[in-house]
């Protein structure tokens, strides 16, 4: 671990090229009232994979937007190949050879790979799309970097990994020499991550420079040639992945010691809280998103459900919460058959809910925090008194939650939108816990929250589990799933295909089950 503060130093290796591919000097970017980036120093050598790591909200995205020309820094210089540049828009950045692969793909589903790649910079001949020329270029790029793309495949039919390669091809097609990859592994299962890293090696071999943004430190250590750590808006140091441990990196990121999701002593009791028997949810035509799912959650038990996104987890959560009607099977909760109960009745009976997408299902962003405290509990004290909302108690209880669950905000009247993701999530967790639920349905409870908040949330879940709370946990973070769960199911194409013991399973094994490469027979 290098000394924090100074710019990443690689002077000793400078023979290869006089100037770094990208150099940022003293970049500061302010938004009204907030300094998003402060005195950023970054030096990326040509032909290396350079990782930028930091917690969510540390300022990585702001920095990359600056580099990609999406906004201009208030102070500081950007140098590309030793020349100072000033980008007014991403097209300036593209012209300078910088390309960006966004975390969320920007592809048109019903277009072919070729059409998506050329979209926006179409080669034309006589005013018409020159498909032959485009196909030649794309095939060449695909072969050169081993991307394995079929120019005529419909993007709709492609898997996540392929889509990402299309995005990479798009950038290469525009002659980018420097690629920015924003959290490229967030959407990939481990096997796909391996493939991506293979591709990155090819890019590197061809002399391209890759800036790789991530907060998954193990991956960073595997792929990066050098690492710059960002904390609270500024570069705190650089690290050599060969000599720095994951833990040391994490501590640089957070600035202190670190938590773990692991729970080792079982607190599982006998009484079942939730029992699903042969639950089936009908889809709109085609395959049922959830088919014949049976599982039991007992008091003090965390039942984890692993699966590649889109395999029915969201629909299963909806079915448990009463947001989606069942076409078959029953749901029982504490001995009552609640299959036909409304969402409100289920919540009142003691089911807490941490939704997958807090902005969509968990919060009223334009409402103050205390109203968000009321949300989901509007029929019960302290939120309600008779037919009325009890504003005073709701406010007081919001203050209590803020204190107890470390929600950092000016006060209960702050609009929820003003909070960071972590603080919003802590408020949601606090709110759901405050009602004293018997069952908690937690979908991606730490998605998009920083390490600090993640630790708090893990702690809360563990404490509640000890108190006898049953938890259904759905997560894309396999470490989280393995670490927290007492039993683990794998969901694939709407079915529970395997039941695993979290004690003996690795993320790689789990990834195999999730993609269907391994089956339950192997597990047995």
């Amino acid at each position, binding site marked *: 671990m290098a000394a924090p503060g100074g710019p990443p130093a690689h002077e000793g290796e400078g023979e290869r090229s006089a100037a770094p591919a990208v150099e940022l000097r003293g970049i500061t970017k302010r938004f009204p009232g907030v300094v998003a980036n402060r005195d950023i120093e970054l030096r990326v050598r040509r032909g290396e994979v350079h990782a930028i790591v930091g917690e969510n*909200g540390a300022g990585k995205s702001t920095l990359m937007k600056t580099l990609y020309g999406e906004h201009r820094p208030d102070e500081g210089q950007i140098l590309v190949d030793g020349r100072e540049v000033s980008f007014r828009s991403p097209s300036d950045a593209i012209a300078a050879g910088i390309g960006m692969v966004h975390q969320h793909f920007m592809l048109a589903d019903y277009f072919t790979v070729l059409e998506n790649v050329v979209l926006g910079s179409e080669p034309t001949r006589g005013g018409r799309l020159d498909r032959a020329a485009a196909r030649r270029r794309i095939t060449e790029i695909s072969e050169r970097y081993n991307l394995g793309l079929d120019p005529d495949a419909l993007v709709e039919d492609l898997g996540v990994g392929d889509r990402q390669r299309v995005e990479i091809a798009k950038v290469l097609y525009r002659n980018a020499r420097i690629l920015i990859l924003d959290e490229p592994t967030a959407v990939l299962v481990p096997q796909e991550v391996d493939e991506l890293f293979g591709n990155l090696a090819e890019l590197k071999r061809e002399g391209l420079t890759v800036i790789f943004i991530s907060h998954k430190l193990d991956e960073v250590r595997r792929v990066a040639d050098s690492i710059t750590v960002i904390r609270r808006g500024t570069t705190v140091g650089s690290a050599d992945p060969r000599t720095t441990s994951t833990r040391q990196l994490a501590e640089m990121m957070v600035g202190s010691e670190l938590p773990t999701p*692991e729970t080792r002593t079982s607190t599982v009791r006998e009484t079942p809280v939730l029992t699903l028997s042969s639950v089936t949810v009908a889809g709109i035509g085609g395959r049922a998103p959830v088919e014949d799912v049976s599982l039991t959650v007992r008091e003090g038990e965390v039942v984890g459900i692993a699966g590649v996104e889109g395999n029915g987890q969201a629909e299963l959560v909806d079915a448990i919460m009463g947001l989606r009607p069942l076409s078959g099977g029953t749901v029982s909760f504490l001995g009552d058959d609640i299959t036909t109960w409304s969402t*409100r009745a289920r919540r009142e009976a003691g089911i807490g809910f941490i939704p997958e997408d807090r902005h969509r299902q968990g919060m009223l962003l334009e409402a103050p925090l205390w109203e968000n405290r009321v949300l989901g509990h509007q029929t019960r004290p302290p939120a309600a008194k008779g037919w009325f*909302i009890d504003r005073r108690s709701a406010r007081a209880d919001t203050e209590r939650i803020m204190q107890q669950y470390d929600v950092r905000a000016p006060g209960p009247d702050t609009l929820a939108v*003003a909070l960071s993701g972590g603080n919003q999530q802590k408020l949601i967790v606090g709110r759901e816990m405050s009602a004293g639920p018997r069952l908690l349905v937690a979908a991606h409870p730490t998605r998009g929250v920083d390490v600090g908040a993640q*630790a*708090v949330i893990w702690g809360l879940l563990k404490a509640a589990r000890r108190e006898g709370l049953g938890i259904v946990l759905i997560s894309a973070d396999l470490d989280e799933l393995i670490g927290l769960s007492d039993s683990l199911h794998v969901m694939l194409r709407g079915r529970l295909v395997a039941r695993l013991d979290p004690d003996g399973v690795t993320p790689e094994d789990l990834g195999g089950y999730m993609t269907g490469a391994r089956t339950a027979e192997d597990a047995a």
Partner: protein
Amino acid sequence: MSGRVVATLRRVGLSLLGPAIAVAVAMAISAVVIALIGEDPLEALEVMVDLGETPRAEVQSIVVIFNRAIPLFLSGLAVSIAFRMGLFNIGVEGQYRLATLVAAAAGAAVVLPAPLHVLFVIVVAMAVGAGWAGIAAVLKVTRGVSEVISSIMLNAIALGLAAYLVVGPFRGSAETASIVSTTPLPESAHVPPLTGLLTGLGLAEPRSELFGFLVIALVVGVLVAVLLARTRFGFDLRATGLSPSAASASGVNARTMTVKAMLLSGAVAGLVGLPQLLGSTYVYSTEFTAGLGFTGIAVALLGRNNPLGIAVAALLFAFLDRAALPLQSIDIPSSVVTIIQGTIVLSVVIANEVARRLARRSAEREAAAVTGAPPDPGSGSAPGNGPDGTQRVGATLPETTEPRA
């Protein structure tokens, strides 16, 4: 605590800033329009704010403004109830026309003692308005028909139906009358005017009567305000408006809420024609004031869907409507007033958006001020003191596989 007050004041300030800027911008644009047609904008302004030469004329102008503002307030209120839950009840027009007609006909057909008779007319009007709006709601929840489309269609049907009913079964006027109307309501169904209140305050006696319905409108306004802001029902309604998905995840039944909100909106819409029906014309006729439902949309926008704001917006619209009269005497066409109203609404829509962003940014700034610079030494975003601190002390990183090179 004082921080909260300051924050609240700032938010209120920002929310008032929008409409204020909008009105100013609209005035400026209108001044340009007036100048372009060759008239003096300053003279126009002078004429607009001049309520009359004699005390009596001034009071008369105030009465005219209030009498106009009352239905606009009710109409804006009806629109806002639906707006607050994300529904666009463009059908207030049809709802109030039909409601007024049926209430007028029903009221003329029964014999009741005074207070009950008025109550009866009100209840009938609210029921018809709610029923008509309910059709749009039911179509939405059962068939997924957009309430915008269906309520536009229902407007057309309501107008046709009202025309048929007033000419046909509900006709109370003579065959030869140029204006076809219902049978006049008997004395017992009249709402007594509030003019006495004005003269009691020492003001001159106006020519026209101030609608007694003002009191009822105020009561309805307060009830709606309390309902929306303070009750569980209101919370569910507003939550659905802010985020339908979050509301249903919180246990709100979106379908039921849609129906309830539309019924409520329609019931209030049913009242729109009553100030005039029970206060001055006592009949529904083919000449009954039309268009209040559409103006109500503008009023609701201007009032930012807040009952108090809507009251102010209704008064502003009524004030401008009255100004159309004196403007004509200095040869400024009354359409200038329509232009002013239009530009105000347009500017308000824009200004509201700007104000909303400013408010959001100021909230973000406050939050950043709290979380961004804590005096906590060493670690800004490190785990704080959770309810279960021991969990995080001495914890180890999840051990995962080593890099594969």
